[in-house]
């Protein structure tokens, strides 16, 4: 997979939940090359405060357009909220290794908060050839993004008085889940994997890390694995959960 540098045009950039934005970008080649689990690096603007590109998981691909979902979390994402249709920005991608794709399996996707971002695109691809359930966990209703997938289970911590992983075991057993894909906070991923492991459910996780380049040169984004430090950018961001937590 060749990594490409392109100028992309903003098609739409709108708030889709409290402090959460969806940005659609028109690309010439990158969108078509993106597989579920890949990420792209975006230059936030020409402001020298933000030289480094920001990594975002690919949320959706429609023809030559791609979407990212982002939460305003720092100065860079704050600046991004002012992007409007027609704005042009530097894009680098596709980056990283995607999720493993299977056929004829019973699969559960578990997205915690912004972790839903890459799972939406994964669901679109996997649901062609598999039975897929998407479990989407958020803390509060305000941060819930309207996600359109066929089998959606929404979990709101505050309203249910428990975490999504507290219900995970039931979902795994009841639906005879064979594969689990998780993206979300570390604690959610780790706990969920431990439950999945108990039931012999193959698990992949998508990690997040600070990085300068996104393609393996800076060595800034390492994560501890059972076989030493690995780079999230080009050895991940998708890892087998057993590689991370044993």
């Amino acid at each position, binding site marked *: 997979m060749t990594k490409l*540098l392109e100028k992309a045009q903003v098609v739409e950039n709108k708030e889709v939940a409290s402090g959460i934005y969806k940005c659609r970008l028109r690309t010439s080649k990158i969108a078509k090359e993106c597989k579920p689990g890949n990420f792209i690096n975006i230059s936030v603007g020409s402001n020298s405060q933000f*030289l480094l590109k920001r990594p975002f998981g690919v949320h959706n691909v429609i023809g030559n357009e791609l979407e990212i979902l982002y939460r305003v979390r720092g100065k860079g994402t704050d600046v991004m909220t002012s992007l409007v249709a027609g704005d042009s920005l530097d894009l*680098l991608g596709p980056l990283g290794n995607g999720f493993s794709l299977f056929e004829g399996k019973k699969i559960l996707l578990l997205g915690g908060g912004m972790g839903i971002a890459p799972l939406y695109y994964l669901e679109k691809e996997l649901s062609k050839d598999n039975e897929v359930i998407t479990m989407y966990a958020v803390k509060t209703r305000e941060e819930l993004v309207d996600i359109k997938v066929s089998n959606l289970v929404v979990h709101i911590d505050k309203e249910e008085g428990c975490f999504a992983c507290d219900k995970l075991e039931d979902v795994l057993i009841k639906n005879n889940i064979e594969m689990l894909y998780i993206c979300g906070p570390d604690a959610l991923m780790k706990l969920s994997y431990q439950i999945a492991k108990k039931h012999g459910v193959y698990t992949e996780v998508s990690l997040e890390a*600070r990085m300068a380049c996104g393609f393996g*040169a*800076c*060595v*800034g*984004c390492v994560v501890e694995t059972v076989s030493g430090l690995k780079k999230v950018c080009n050895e991940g961001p998708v890892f087998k959960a057993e590689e991370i937590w044993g």
Partner: protein
Amino acid sequence: MKSLEVNLGKLVLQNPITTASGCFGYGTEYSDFVDLDSLGAITLKSITLNQREGNPTPRIAETPSGMMNSIGLANCGIKEFIQEKLPALEHLKKVKVIANIAGHSTEENVELAEILDGQKRVDAIELNISCPNVDAGGLAFCQDMAQLKVLLNKVRAKTDKPLIVKLAANVHDIVNLAQVCEGEGADMLSLINTVTGLEVDIENRKLFFSRGYAGLSGPAIRPIALKAVYDVSRVVKLPIIGMGGIANIDDVVKFLMVGADAVSVGMMNFVEPDISQRLVGGLQGYIRAKNIGLKDLTLN
């Protein structure tokens, strides 16, 4: 087309655009973006005898016009370097390959130089005595002239390849340091390494990096780097590879004008991975438009 060839003593480059160690991986990371053979030289990531995992995360912080890093010389070790990294560059015919060594002791650097001396694909050896992110070796070598002399002498004795010494600007007297290098057999100098700095995590009321100090790079340090090149080039005769926040062709020209013979692109490779190759074209365009040669890029 005007020639961009530069003669750095024993090392001849097809053009003066090179990449800085630590910002260009082992070269192949950039092959999707850059025709490596279009560059003057690539300087590979610092290498040590044994594999090094490097420092704990976070290793990266963004700053105005730059970034800080505390990678800690993470590298694959000399064995894998020779077995896997160098062969991946074997097919390149025009670009020069500079191996950067960063042993924690004099002995380790001597051993690394001896091993690399036997490697055909290594065109020059850069001795990194200015990394701020390690406990032993690194910047400490810049602060003890007696130890530095011993180091340079012993490394020099082990290799006939062009020997570059990479210095830091945050030292007591960089001109004196450069003179010591010149006196002890260095063939050229790389100026400058990252500038030591500090970042604070105010949310958790602690220092951001686990080691506290980290290295600042990018356009933020360019004026410091220009000064170092200017000061050193007026006193020392060795060829100088200037680096520190080069982000466009004007920056390249500034370094050449104040006394650099070649330049290295560092942090900006992360931001614009194709920048090094674009700068080769940019420099060609610059001298063509002015109808001058590289040698004319001097101060009045």
